[in-house]
């Protein structure tokens, strides 16, 4: 009985932990050029809000749909949809290792542009996941994905940007992102 409960906990935690591990290792490599316990642990702690907010969003949808699959198993399968994000993060880490630190700023625009790839891919994966999980229509699965994102993304943004995310400066962020991409494109054209 206890063994089954332990395996449920592991099932629930393993993929969020993998994401946190990758984020921690990434921060360590990017900030210092090497993988250290000090920076990896600090980076994983700093970005723990990402898997947690994802899980919170999923829990809301799970609670509404009440599928037959146990929560831990369902969450495990849901987090498997993060695979495009994990490969993207790895690509970012490798780019940061290759570039000298004073040129890391050049990664900004490419990151913002390529960010779209895992974003779009994960939507397709998650729509399929919700269809399989509850056996629902594609339209309803899309609503579930939107709902999950509506809960998790604002929560993550609110934590990450914190006090700076007043409505005025928050929307100005998008202007700055546009400027960043425009400056990068100008440089290359």
């Amino acid at each position, binding site marked *: 009985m206890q063994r089954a409960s332990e395996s449920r906990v592991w*099932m629930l935690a*393993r*993929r969020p932990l*993998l994401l946190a*591990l*990758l984020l921690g*290792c990434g*921060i*360590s*490599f*990017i*900030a*210092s*050029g*090497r*993988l*250290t*316990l*000090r*920076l*990896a642990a*600090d*980076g994983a*702690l*700093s*970005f723990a809000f990402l898997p947690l907010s994802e899980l919170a969003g999923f829990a809301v949808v799970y609670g509404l749909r009440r599928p037959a*699959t146990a929560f831990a*198993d*369902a969450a*495990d*399968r849901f987090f*498997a949809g993060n*695979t495009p994000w*994990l*490969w993207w993060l*790895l690509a970012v*880490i490798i780019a*940061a*290792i290759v570039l*000298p*630190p*004073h*040129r*890391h*700023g*050049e*990664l*900004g625009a490419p990151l913002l542009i390529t960010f779209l790839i895992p974003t779009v891919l994960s939507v397709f994966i998650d729509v399929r996941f919700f269809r399989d999980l509850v056996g629902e229509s594609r339209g309803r699965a899309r609503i579930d994905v939107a709902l999950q994102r509506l809960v998790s993304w604002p929560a993550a943004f609110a*934590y*990450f*940007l*914190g*006090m*700076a995310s*007043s409505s*005025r*400066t928050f929307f*100005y962020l998008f202007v700055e992102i546009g400027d960043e991409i425009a*400056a990068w494109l100008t*440089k290359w054209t």
Partner: protein
Amino acid sequence: MAMRFAGALLAASVIIGTAVDRAPVREPIVLGGYRVIAADFHTHSSTWSDGALTPWGLVLEAQHQGLDAIAVTGHRQTQDARWARWFSELIGGPTVLIGEEIPEIPHHVVAIGITETIASSLDIAAQIAEIHRQGGVAIAAHPGEMFWTGFAPVMDRLDGTEICHPAIYQYVGAEEMLEQFASRTRAAAIGSSDFHGLGRLGLCRTFVFARDTSAEAIVEAIRARRTVVYGREGKAYGDAELIKLAEADGRVPKAARPDYSPSAWDRLSQLLGVAGLIGLIAGSRWPAAR
């Protein structure tokens, strides 16, 4: 089995990386009767200021990057700076100044040496008056052309201006813009990394000629414009006499260019770490739920 192998590679990478991760041992530099403090006055933590390290992580990283002082400058809040200062005092780390970045449109002001959060609803003149009332100094953060109109009413009241910022390596013309802005003020030259995670903490740094290592002495030195900054290709900014002193001595320009070239052990750690992560991602096809 494959996952265990990947985990072992990652563990080996962490062990090697941690073993070579030593804070540099440095002798204090005293020039012209002043203690020369290597400082980074614009850093962000992961507690609500879109940084990548916790406040205490910033303190440890500052030690490893050879910094004597940092200002933790959260967006519109000073709580993370207080945590960083508490932790640094606990471990005998670098001097931590309580700071804040006030990110308004169209100006970003870095306030350091303050005691309370500055209300961002104030206009820029009132913000700077409040910073001064609290005993702090106001620094123009990355004052590119888009911020010039915002700073126009307070050019004579700025205590410092960022002349070295990672943007100079990133954007064509950024270095000239910061130089032009600085030439219109009497503000102290400041070098700051605006560290959010990319680059390095202290990539751009300020050498402050202070009476001692306390936060008060550092703020006083900025107010008195006793700073030297080295930009691209070792270009020096700041007090002309202090630049001469620093050049004659040689240790300050050397400390301004930390060696980021990876050692053979770093390369091995990188190789093993990336291989381990590839293995973990590729192998993470754990049994599907029933």
